[in-house]
């Protein structure tokens, strides 16, 4: 049996699947962007994404992605002792990571601008109807 969310859509709804893929595809850029101004640990990144975007579907998607970005050489990490007794793993962008974040941001900006122009008449009609 499929679940129904607060918008009345089921988990197997094709629209939901598209939305999931869209969010996942943008998550990598969002993580790189959230680290642009300095180092952060996983939960800080997660909270920032929750506050500033609607990209996080499951907390479990963020940590493996951080691990992969580190493997790719885009992030580096260091362990720092915290007051609560559990060390925190802080991530920061490497030089390659900053370059990649900038490239992806420019690409995204061009992409969203062109798509926005294409969809403007559709949205205009949707508002008036």
């Amino acid at each position, binding site marked *: 049996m499929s679940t129904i969310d607060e918008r009345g859509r089921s988990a197997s709804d094709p629209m939901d699947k598209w939305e999931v893929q869209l969010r996942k*595809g943008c998550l*990598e*850029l969002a993580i790189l962007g959230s680290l642009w101004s300095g180092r952060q*640990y*996983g*939960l800080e990144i997660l909270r920032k994404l929750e506050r500033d975007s609607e990209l996080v579907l*499951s*907390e*479990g*998607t963020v*940590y*493996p*992605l951080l*691990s*992969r970005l580190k*493997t*790719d050489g*885009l992030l580096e990490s260091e362990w720092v*002792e*915290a007051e*609560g*007794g*559990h*060390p*925190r*793993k802080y991530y920061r962008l490497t030089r390659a990571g900053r370059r*990649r974040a900038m*490239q*992806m941001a*420019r*690409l*995204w900006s*061009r*992409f969203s601008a062109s798509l926005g122009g294409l969809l403007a008449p559709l949205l205009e009609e949707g508002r008036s109807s």
Partner: protein
Amino acid sequence: MSRAVPDPAVERYLDRVRASLRGLPEVDIDEIVLELRGHIAERSEPGQDVEATLRSLGDPAGLAREYRIDRVTSRAECGASPIVVLHGLLLIRGRSLWGWTVLALTALGYAWRSHLAPRRSRRSCPLTTWASGTGAAPP
């Protein structure tokens, strides 16, 4: 350094993650588990049901699978040797029929990328992969 009393539910969860990551380097598994332990401890408010935090992280086997898949994807995208990629695929395979199906499909995809698709430079690889997913040309 003070440590809280271990919560049986948390320990069970982390044990399942650890078991599902078996085959990866021990040092990597230790780091993953340590990071998740810190997340769970900090995310769970005092007196709050820790189960809610565990649920938000998702099924432990599924979480471990995400780590494995991302690891293999990273290697394949950057043109690692077939032996390295095959090893990674065997790690994510598991014991189920679904695991074998994923293994076969991924191996086919890797073979296509490695030998049939146009060659791409190692440095531009992840960006071109991300860009091609959005239908835009790489810079």
